[in-house]
């Protein structure tokens, strides 16, 4: 299994390379007032508008300092229509054995009777699991879970 890796908030992430449409740098993200907080904004990639999701908000990481040079990983339409995530730095493409990805979801769900159940479950839909690599622990993303997780958070927000 080949993974496209990137860094976000000091952590290493990877996503199956077959799901990545392209990687773009140096684009302007247009802010969308009233958009859900997990949305960074929209970008124009060769005349087509794409949604940019802020994974920091979804995972609950500290917000980034404002950066001028934006890097995006855009996903194929199978993942969600015209959508991508903002990353801090791009890494190499690495190859790992899928059996080495530990699914930590089962454990978390078992001990997670917390009040953030809904959010946690939503977040878990985004991560396939973790894998050990030469450069440390890597979270393997399931990008198809991103848009559903956002819907879940919106509903959650509505409830509270």
């Amino acid at each position, binding site marked *: 299994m080949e993974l496209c890796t990137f860094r976000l908030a000091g952590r290493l992430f990877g996503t199956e390379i077959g799901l990545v449409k392209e990687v773009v740098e140096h684009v302007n993200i247009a802010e969308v007032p009233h958009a859900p907080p997990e949305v960074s904004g929209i970008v124009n990639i060769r005349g087509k508008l794409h949604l940019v999701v802020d994974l920091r908000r979804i995972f609950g990481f500290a917000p980034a300092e404002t950066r001028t040079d934006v890097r995006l990983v855009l996903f194929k339409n199978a993942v*969600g*229509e015209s959508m991508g995530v903002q990353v801090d730095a791009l890494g190499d493409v690495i190859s790992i054995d899928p059996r080495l990805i530990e699914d930590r979801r089962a454990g978390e769900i078992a001990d997670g009777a917390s009040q953030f159940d809904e959010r946690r479950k939503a977040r878990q839909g985004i991560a396939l699991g973790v894998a050990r690599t030469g450069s440390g622990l890597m979270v393997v993303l399931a990008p198809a879970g991103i848009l559903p997780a956002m819907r879940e958070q919106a509903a959650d927000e509505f409830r509270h």
Partner: protein
Amino acid sequence: MSEIEDAGILQEFREEAGDHLATLESVLLAMERDGISTDDLNRIFRSAHSIKGAAGFLGLTGIGAVSHAAETVLSLLRDGKMTFGKGVAASLLSAVDVLRRLLEAAPGDGGVDSRPIVGQLEGLLDPPTAASVMEESEEFHELGARGRSMSTTTFRLRQIPSNHRHQYILCYTKGELSRRQAVGQSPVALVRELQKLGHLVDDKLQEVRMGEVLPDEAVSILVLFSTDLEPTHIAKATNLPLDCIQELDLGKLLADIAKDESSLLREFEPGVPPPPLPPKALPRTKPQPTVLHPDPMIEVRPAIPDKAGNGIPEAPAAPAVGTHETPNPSATETVRVRLDVLDRLMRLAGELVLVRNRQLSRLDGASIADRETSQRLDQVTAGIQDAVLSARMQPLGNVLSKFQRIVRDLGHKLQKEIALNVEGGETELDRTLLEALADPLTHIVRNCCDHGIEKPADRVRAGKPAGGTVSVKAWHEAGRVRIRIKDDGKGIDANAVRAKALEKGLRAEDELSRMTDREVRQLVFLPGFSTAASVTDLSGRGVGMDVVRSAIERLGGAVTLDSEPGSGTTLDLQLPLTLAIVPALVVVSRGCRFAIPQASVDELVRLYDEDVERIESAGREDLYRLREHLLPLVSLGHVLSSREPLGADDRAAFSEADRVARTARLDEFRKGERVAVSETFAVLKAGEGRFGLILDKILGTEEIVVEPLHQGLGNPGIYAGATVLGDGEIALILDTQGVCRHAGLQPADLDASVVGAHEQQALGMLLFRAGPDEQLGLPLSALRRVVRLRSDEIERSGEREYVQLEERSVRVERLDRHLSLSLAPAQQDGFLLLPSGDDRSWGILASALVDSGEYRFRMDESPEEGSFVRGTALLRGHRTLLLDESRLRQELSR
């Protein structure tokens, strides 16, 4: 090729056959109205023939049988062996309907039985004709050399044009067909190509021995082909190897057959009238074993006229509307383009613009050669953009063409004689708009037939011709599309509308009596004005007119109605040319760009220096007096600042902060620390009303391409979409109604009548008292109705008072709480003045009514009376406080 191997081929056939059916239908309708012509018959004969030909090639037997029967009837009509009557037209139109259904269901038959219609068509022939046609189509001739021979009937051979000197059997192996398919020539395209070169008399799948697996080369389709191409040219023209072409010598056979049938196909010998011919028979329509159906005709018309990229039949239908058709007047070569390809082209053209812009911005210090190249790039880009946009445009005739049929069928059903006149079918508009327009237009035309046009007897009694006319006229005007639908029916009786509106509780009686007839007629657009059950009681129309209006308004258009009782009704529609590309005002707020569609912008107001104080803060929200109307204002920045809709407190806080900031800037200006102070707002439409949106910066106007918002944005109500601007930046498109809603503003009605400050004008006023002392005045237009109120009907809830009226709770407002007036005794019977408009939640308490009527007066400003009073005037001998209705509304409607 007896089975369909590729859905793409089927789709191609469906589109092409759809075009032919549209031609058939419109020509049949025109002939039913205006009589037959040889040109028309030839044209639709070719259409039926083409459908049959390709259907046979694709093995669609149901379609083949029906189109074959229709073709036979048409050929007999053309040859003068049958007369064209109502029954014939109706049967042929039914055949068109059945073919449409079969086409949709193909390759299956979708449960559509083709036999009844075939029987119906055959039943049109008188028995001797039927018998001789049958005889002719059962008389087989074996042609060609052994191994590559095929048989065909006298009937088919008779269709060979007399000027064709050469006949061939062409052999297409399955391998050959696959190779052609690979380079994009489908069987449908192949049939079309052959028809351009000559006449496809017959074709058949060469028999193969059962149970034997054959290589592709051994299965083939044989085509009996007639043309005037010499043997030396035929190989090149058909692109077939020589051993697949077999020349026939049919001269004698054809001469025998043609002995008494000298000029069959008049399209090859124009001007020659059809000689009287002995009756001939209808061929049996059941498929012959192993002989596939098609015997399509040559198509010598310039090209199949369908506009690039629309996928909907165009030219044959468009000019056909209401007028007698001439084949393809434009004679422009066209091809089909898939919609997604066109959309992609459109996007790419947009990108090209961005590239061009970037290039142009780098020209500083460039060489002359570079400049020239860039200029050329600039021109070419603009040209491409124009061309792509025009490719999306389609004539309105595409929609109007189906109205002939609707009107005809409705006329039959309602037993009315109705003619439809269409003008301007060639008027073009964007395809998305056209699609959205089809339903409301159909609705209007149906209404004209149903409720506008009277029965023939009634019309004659009214001194009008028995037949009614519905006319549809379309034209371009001032960058918009205008469509006028007019009938010469009985019109709309304003008093009937009044009665209906009263009965439905849509308007109060006094309000209705004040409205002009024209105003009253517009009430048919109100939701709930009529239902299908009640509308027949009403002289006029009105079924779902609210739906029509909202559909048109959603498209950025407008609709108005006018009617002359006894002589008809006219509906005027105004529409933008395109939905995809709209002119918009581009503005900046909080560092983001926003686009406001021009259709929503009434005007821009810029205030300089001292004038900025004319924005009144009023402690609650910003207001600006625009030509005697109070316009509520909000700053776009404030609307954007909160995801939650703004409440009264938010508005008050923003308004106060803005006022402080404005005053501070003005102070700086007065002290000379600032060169100028200015404030800009746009007057925007929100439904019927208006509000002002304060903008930080206006960049200008631009034609924008509207793109839907990504669903991940969770549908914020203030946007109508997004767009990429010419410089590549993104702008969000504001939905003005959503912005107004988010800001919690009550839009002002700028059309409401106003008490002119200095001019004398007649104004309907109600004079009343609240407290014992002052006489108050309110324009009648501000009131819906006045009801008597006993003090014991008033229920108290804390500080507030309510009464039950019209099955709801209505808040009783005492004016002495809002302006300085003498106090009315708490326990006193009186009147409740209910405001006009949508808000039914409050009414003003009056202790006594003084008078009502038209008054001419001069108003004096008297600011000391407070903000709810516009001024004072002397009415009926008393100083009267003229209340500011819009201010009252602003205040009380929250």
